[in-house]
């Protein structure tokens, strides 16, 4: 099976999705598309409804209302051979050997036993676990088990990868290794939907993002779109002399002879430069930068505590 899809049609299409659990509405009127070949960041604080949306997309939950389609239809497990899903709550068959588990999932994805084992050995070598092929999974560390799960997810080069917190529990070295693997999948043409709290990963990998807040899409578009809408521009100034108070900007960072100024609405960079020069400030350098996704994330979700769940 292959995700054919009509030209121009999104690979994932969610329309007016609503999810009630008990008397509580978890998601309301959520609509977004993910196009074939793009890497999509699905962002939000804990409890905002990301995992619920992914589970509904994959038929694990039944939606209260709305349509959730992959390649033009509701997902069914028999279409799973071309899908790689790494859930947030995950674990392996603990009493079995690494190779047995990987070969099992490989076979379920349509590979022959031999091919599944060969693929697994190559992958284990890449993630430095070649000597663990015959080891029971419960004898591996948490991080090693996660590597195996990622391997199972990307087995048979899926066309759609859905990764819910793929790097949780990884140290920086292994996180970089895993992000490299995901980048390879992306380069090979896979469509990737990624839930993560690592904003630098999102900025590096994602083409578009959606920020979910309390079950509602707070922001949706390219990273630049979101930065323009929510972050705006920051001015970085190296200077001599005291900065004047002004209605044009807020001082975000103030150090000795250095400041970061957040532009207020209706202001542009030139207005600030003129204001500084008029006030007698000696400006040695003046650069502009967009707000980072992390800054935007903090701005959007900063008023929220961290409730459990996804």
């Amino acid at each position, binding site marked *: 099976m292959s995700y054919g899809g009509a030209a121009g049609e999104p690979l994932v299409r969610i329309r007016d999705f609503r999810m009630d659990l008990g008397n509580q509405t978890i998601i309301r009127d959520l609509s977004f598309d993910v196009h074939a070949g793009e890497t999509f960041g699905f962002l939000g604080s804990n409890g905002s409804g990301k995992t619920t949306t992914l589970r509904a997309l994959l038929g694990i*939950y039944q939606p*209260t209302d709305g349509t959730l389609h992959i390649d033009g239809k509701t997902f069914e497990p028999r279409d799973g051979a071309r*899908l790689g899903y*790494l*859930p947030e709550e995950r674990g*392996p068959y603990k009493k079995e050997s690494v190779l047995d588990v990987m070969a099992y999932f490989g076979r379920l994805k349509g590979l022959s036993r031999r091919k599944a084992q060969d693929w697994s050995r190559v992958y284990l070598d890449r993630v430095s676990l070649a000597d663990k092929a015959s080891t029971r999974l419960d004898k591996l560390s948490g991080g090693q088990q996660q590597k195996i799960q990622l391997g199972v997810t990307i087995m048979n080069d899926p066309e759609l990868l859905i990764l819910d917190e793929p790097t949780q529990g990884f140290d920086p070295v292994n996180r970089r290794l895993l992000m490299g693997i995901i980048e390879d999948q992306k380069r090979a043409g896979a469509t990737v939907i990624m839930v993560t709290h690592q904003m630098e990963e999102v900025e590096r990998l994602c083409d578009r993002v959606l920020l979910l807040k309390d079950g509602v899409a707070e922001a949706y578009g390219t990273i630049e779109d979101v930065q323009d809408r929510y972050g705006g521009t920051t001015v970085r100034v190296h200077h001599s002399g005291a900065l004047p108070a002004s209605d044009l900007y807020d001082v975000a960072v103030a150090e000795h002879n250095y400041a970061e100024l957040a532009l207020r609405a209706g202001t542009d960079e030139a207005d600030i430069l003129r204001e500084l020069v008029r006030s007698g400030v000696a400006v040695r350098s003046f650069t502009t930068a967009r707000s980072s996704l992390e800054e935007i994330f903090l701005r959007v979700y900063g008023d929220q505590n961290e409730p459990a769940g996804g």
Partner: protein
Amino acid sequence: MAQHNLNTVIGFEFFRTVKKKRFWIATLAIPVLLAIVFALIIMSNESTSTTAENQKNAHLSFTYTDDSGLVTDTVATAFGGTKTTDSARAIADVKAGTVDAYFAFPADPAKQPVRIYGTDKGVFGNGTYDAVARQILITTAQQKIGSPQLTTLAQGNVTIESQTYKNGQVSGGIGVVIPPLLFLVIFYVIIILLGNQMLSSTLEEKENRVTEMILTTLDPTTLIIGKVISLFMAGLVQMLIFALPVVAGYLFFRSNLNLPDVDLSHLTLEPGPMVVGALLLLGGFTLFTGTLVAIGAVVPTAREAGTFFAPLMVVIWVPFYVVSLIVSDPRSLIVQIFTYFPFTAPVTAMLRNAFGSLYPFESAIVIAELFIFGFVTLRLAVHLFRYGSVEYSKKLSIRSTFRRGNHA
């Protein structure tokens, strides 16, 4: 693809079951136990036989009185006896240790006990007195009858072959009953030994958080059916291993083990009861498996599953409390209830089927009932697994899974 996945699941589940140490511990424990019991029986039989023979032929120095007049001096003397008329003196001699024992044969040995007064030779040694006194009476009786044939008959050592008829045709007797009862044995072995594994088969996916990866790769129906088939196969492996020592014992150690001399050629495989037995086994297995898997899908841990497991195991033994009624009065109300109540039906109906008291229309109803209930519970198990297994750490509300289903 579905067939490929089913085969994959069966292979994975079967081999990981039979690769587990606890599977082999449970499987080999029974044959090993049987082998030990058989060995003890053989040793004990040999020892008992030797002891009995020694006791029978033991020459004691004893005195005796005979109020019956049956015991002849010749026989008593041959065993070392000396007749006396003074029982008080005889007892005093025993106490003094000048003779081993004194036997007082009563006027009617058939109704009154033979009294023995002997010097203590230990628990086993004292048995000699009993054996000798008994053998004296037997030898005496044989001499009085004067015919080896009559003596054999008097001892009840006769062989009887009976032939009965049912609907004008020769019926097979016990030879017809035994084969269908094997289905009952298979049912018990599978449910008792593998019930716990059925219960925990889906729990493992939940407890290890494998569920979501499985549910997006594999249809839950395929997963559950694959698990059920693999467990059934594992059960058959266990039964083959259990049967090995029994078959070996029967073939090579029959006389040592005092096994009844069952002529297997007399076993009759009647198609009707055999087919009904097989269908009852499959239906019952489906029902119990579906129920156990459904329970596993609802509860969050194996520990909580145990609460439901015990009552279910009790239910399959309940029909044995009325087994005499099942055999002698199958139309009684309690037997009828047990025949049709789904969880007691397999055992009750298999017993009645073996003893020939399950009528064809009853068979049809019970088989249909078991398959329908089994199918429904399996569908329920699949539904609960699909929509309930991601409730990893809490007990599932069955109602909520159907509420979600309504929104589909």
